[in-house]
């Protein structure tokens, strides 16, 4: 048999970690230390999950959440990435936006939820804007640092070969800053995912993984809560591994601009 590919091996390792954590949970749940209603066994959770998937409600909740998250996240990229790059490239842009970013960044995105509800009401707009707010700053700051860390020698070399500002931007600065840009995308995604669920807890009133968790509280449905949490974790995991992992493998790892950890 051939040795498993690095990708397969990393999935295997991740599976082992998750199985171990699940086993510990199950032991505690079955030990009877806590009431079953509060700490349902994994089989109960699995049953709930299957039935929620079967009746389509889980897909609909996840779909809403993903839609809001991706909307806000994309908005953050479309605005944060170019703005961060311009900040790194032009002093005037930096001087204008950096103080603004420094002042807004420390405010937790969820602290804006009540304010945004006041302005935009309950629903999608508020949630999307909260996600945007949360994802914007990691994207912006990483793009900014990335541009500033682009090796001067690449700019010189490209300049000698006749690159104009436009070519410099697309063919040197963006790829040269890519390790930071990818880190920015990753962090922005994590923040967006956290923010969407958090905002849904408060700002939505019918669909969404955050809302379903909050709603389940009313009926002490711990199994519904945990099933939803599991779905949130799974989607985050899939994005992290598949989307960002493959983005990284096809860019900075391939170019030797980042290395895999030893061992």
């Amino acid at each position: 048999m051939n040795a498993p590919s690095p990708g397969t091996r990393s999935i295997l390792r991740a599976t082992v970690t998750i199985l171990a954590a699940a086993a510990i949970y199950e032991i505690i749940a079955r030990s009877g230390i806590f009431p079953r209603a509060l700490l349902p066994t994994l089989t109960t959770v699995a049953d709930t999950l299957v039935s929620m998937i079967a009746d389509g409600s889980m897909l609909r909740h996840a779909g809403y959440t993903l839609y809001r998250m991706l909307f806000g996240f994309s908005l953050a990229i479309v605005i944060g990435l170019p703005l961060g790059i311009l900040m790194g490239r032009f002093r005037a842009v930096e001087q204008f936006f950096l103080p603004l970013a420094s002042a807004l960044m420390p405010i937790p995105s969820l602290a804006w939820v009540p304010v945004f509800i006041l302005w935009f009401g309950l629903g999608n707009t508020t949630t999307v804007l909260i996600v945007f707010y949360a994802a914007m700053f990691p994207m912006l700051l990483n793009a900014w640092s990335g541009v500033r860390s682009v090796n001067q020698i690449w700019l010189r070399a490209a300049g000698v070969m006749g690159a104009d500002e436009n070519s410099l931007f697309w063919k040197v600065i963006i790829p040269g800053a890519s390790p930071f840009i990818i880190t920015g995308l990753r962090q922005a995604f994590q923040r967006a995912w956290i923010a969407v669920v958090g905002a849904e807890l408060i700002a939505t009133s019918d669909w969404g993984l955050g809302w379903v968790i909050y709603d389940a509280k009313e009926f002490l449905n711990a199994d519904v809560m945990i099933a939803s949490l599991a779905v949130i974790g799974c989607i985050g995991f899939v994005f992290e591994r598949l989307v960002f992992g493959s983005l990284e493998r096809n860019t900075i790892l391939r170019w030797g601009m980042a290395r895999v950890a030893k061992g």
Partner: protein
Amino acid sequence: MSHIEVRDVSLVYDTPAGRVPGVQAANFDIEASEFLCLLGPSGCGKSTLLNIIAGFLSPTGGEIRIGGKAVTGHGLDRGVVFQDFAQLFPWRTALGNVTFGLEMKGVPKQEREEIALKQLQLVKLEKFANAYPHHLSGGMQQRVAIARALAYNPAVLLMDEPFAALDAFTRDDMQRLLAEVWRETRKTVIYVTHNVAEAVYLADRVVVMTPHPGTVKIEVPIRLPRPRDPLSVEFLEYQKELLRQLGPAATGQATNGKAND
């Protein structure tokens, strides 16, 4: 008229600690297709001078004329090879690096790849056209950098100690290869080094600089047939002569270039 004229070129660096002279009133000419070495002890201003000729720095005094015209800024008439291996774009393959200048010129894709492949053949790296720089050795990366600087066909090639960070064996190979490339392309070359043997091996003429704050001390033409034999008596005579010109302070450093980079 000479190809490049360096006229009273001076540069003073403004630093937080005060004004530091980089190079003082340097004067010399370079003929078309000539291989000129700039030789001098560390810190004398060789890189400063080369960066002025490349157009990265503006002189605070004097001027550079290329083909009779005073130049400011960089231009496609000059190709530059730096000492730093990191000069290649890591996100482009060897071929992608070499095509960059042609891409900027608007040469169609197929044509520029053909040209780039020829340049890679010239530096004997056609087999590695599709390799990314981090999979190439230091010497190979510098060869790609040379091919890249030549690809868009500049008349002048400026090189700042391109082989200084290589081990002695690789460096010998690279010098031989560069001499060959120069013979085939007939570029005007300005090559910075603080290694005496390297200067004698490569140059038609060596411009020796004084220690910091540097200026031109003397020009030594190397009248040896090519390819040159580093073990011949005449070769060693030239080395001695250059060492004498550099003065006692520079002797240890200049003969033992590889340890002092």
